[in-house]
């Protein structure tokens, strides 16, 4: 498959096109370069290993990985339903589930409060009957990140399922495999590249989540203050620390995205 991909054809593109692409690329590279220039390299390590930074980093990893796990558990079945089942209102439901991708995250946070807050639709009951209190807790931060990040997994996996050759599933079924077996042994392995890509995108989005988290879960070090929140507050008191913390987020995301690209294309 890989050999049939068009390679190195770019040079035949019109010069204007290449120029526009160059401007487009510079638009993304320059802000990064700006950050690098401003980074206080001398004190970077000290800033990075400060208690606040370590606490925020640890919480960010915990929250974003948990959010990704939750997104996989609920998002894969959702993607499957969108790809395979025809039912009335499917398009509306799909639009609703990917809405957080375009919704301002702060609005998402307010909506989460309206659902899971103390006076929310479900929140009052959760607190009274089950004793679960979500706002201002790490669980709340995870919920906020899941809300914003899960759509990335759903649409990626759905696209994978739609692009899949259904004959493999049919063959398995004619050979007597039960539905769970088909799902586990045929469908999921076949969409694995999409699943991996979706999970990684979801994780990267969760890692960078800010607005919904600060609105729904608040900001408290060690409990709900994830890296982006720590960066935001540090920007006001200690801009150098904020830049170093941002660089960590950038580096992690960049490594993931570069790795993802090879894996995604290489595995298809």
């Amino acid at each position, binding site marked *: 498959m890989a050999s049939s991909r068009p390679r190195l054809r770019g040079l035949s593109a019109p010069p204007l096109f290449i120029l526009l692409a160059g401007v487009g690329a510079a638009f993304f590279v320059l802000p990064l370069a700006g950050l690098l220039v401003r980074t206080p390299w001398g004190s970077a390590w000290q800033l990075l290993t400060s208690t606040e930074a370590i606490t925020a980093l640890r919480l960010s990893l915990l929250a974003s990985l948990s959010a990704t796990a939750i997104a996989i558990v609920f998002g894969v079945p959702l993607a499957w339903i969108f790809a395979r089942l025809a039912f009335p209102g499917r398009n509306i439901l799909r639009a609703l589930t990917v809405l957080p991708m375009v919704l301002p995250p702060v609005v998402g946070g307010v909506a989460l409060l309206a659902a899971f*807050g103390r*006076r929310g639709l479900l929140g009052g009951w959760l607190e009274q009957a089950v004793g679960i209190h979500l*706002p201002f807790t790490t669980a709340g931060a995870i919920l906020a990140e899941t809300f914003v990040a899960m759509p990335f997994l759903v649409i990626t996996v759905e696209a994978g399922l739609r692009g899949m050759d259904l004959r493999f599933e049919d063959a398995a079924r004619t050979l007597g495999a039960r539905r769970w077996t088909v799902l586990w042994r045929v469908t999921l392995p076949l969409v694995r590249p999409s699943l991996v890509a979706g999970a990684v995108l979801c994780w990267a989005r969760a890692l960078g989540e800010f607005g919904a988290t*600060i609105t729904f879960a*608040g900001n408290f*070090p060690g409990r709900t203050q994830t890296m982006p929140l720590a960066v935001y*507050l540090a*920007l006001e008191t200690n801009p150098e620390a904020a830049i170093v913390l941002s660089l960590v987020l950038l580096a992690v995301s960049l490594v993931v995205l570069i790795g993802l690209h090879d894996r995604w294309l290489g595995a298809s």
Partner: protein
Amino acid sequence: MQPKPLGAFTATALLLAACGNASQPASPTGVGLSGSITVFAASSLTAAFTTIGTDFQKAHPGTMIHFAFAGSSTLVAQVQQGAIGDVFASADESNIQKLVNAGLTAGSPSIFARNKLQIVVQAGNPKHVTGLADLSRSGLVVVLCAPAVPCGRYAGQALQKANVIVTPASEEADVKSVVTKVVLGEADAGIVYVTDVKAAGAQVQGVDIPDPLNVIADYPIVVLKDSQNVALAKAFIGYIHANGPRTLARYGFLPP
């Protein structure tokens, strides 16, 4: 409305300002003022400054006052990063001092209002909060401003004076977010400015903090060095000093 001699005085004041005498107070009226300015102002000033801005524009047709409201420390960071504006009004002196130290201001800041702290609770005070000491009660969800924000630092000072240790559920990035958390019912109490309680209306109410424990916040205002319209910036600050106190008092601010 303005008697003629005042106009002459204004001309003199403007002339002095044009001569680069930065310590000269801004002109009391603005004959010939035009153009627009951007005012960076602490979020606790949102309602009062919006009203004053409208009044000023009415008094001086052809002028336009734009506001950017945010936490004082956020605004300082923005100006330090090169945000262009004309006037800066902060909720504390230490933030504006950062700009003065960085050479980003023209002239020295002047105090135009004061504010003090109040405990904000839901309307009807369902948790029966009577003072700072109640905030350490277990089961009470308390939200404060982050220590980096003026309201957070003041709240810390007040709690220290009262010898009360509070573990907040959240340290919000600005004072309005603290009020919002109480309005939405997520938090039972927060420490904010008297003016924020007043601005939030009937959904919340304030519990007074006695003066010995309270912290008085001075609100300074200054012209920024990169101002493109110094005349209008000075006129606006002059207007705040002359006509502002009455409007500011309506929103709960104390006179300087």
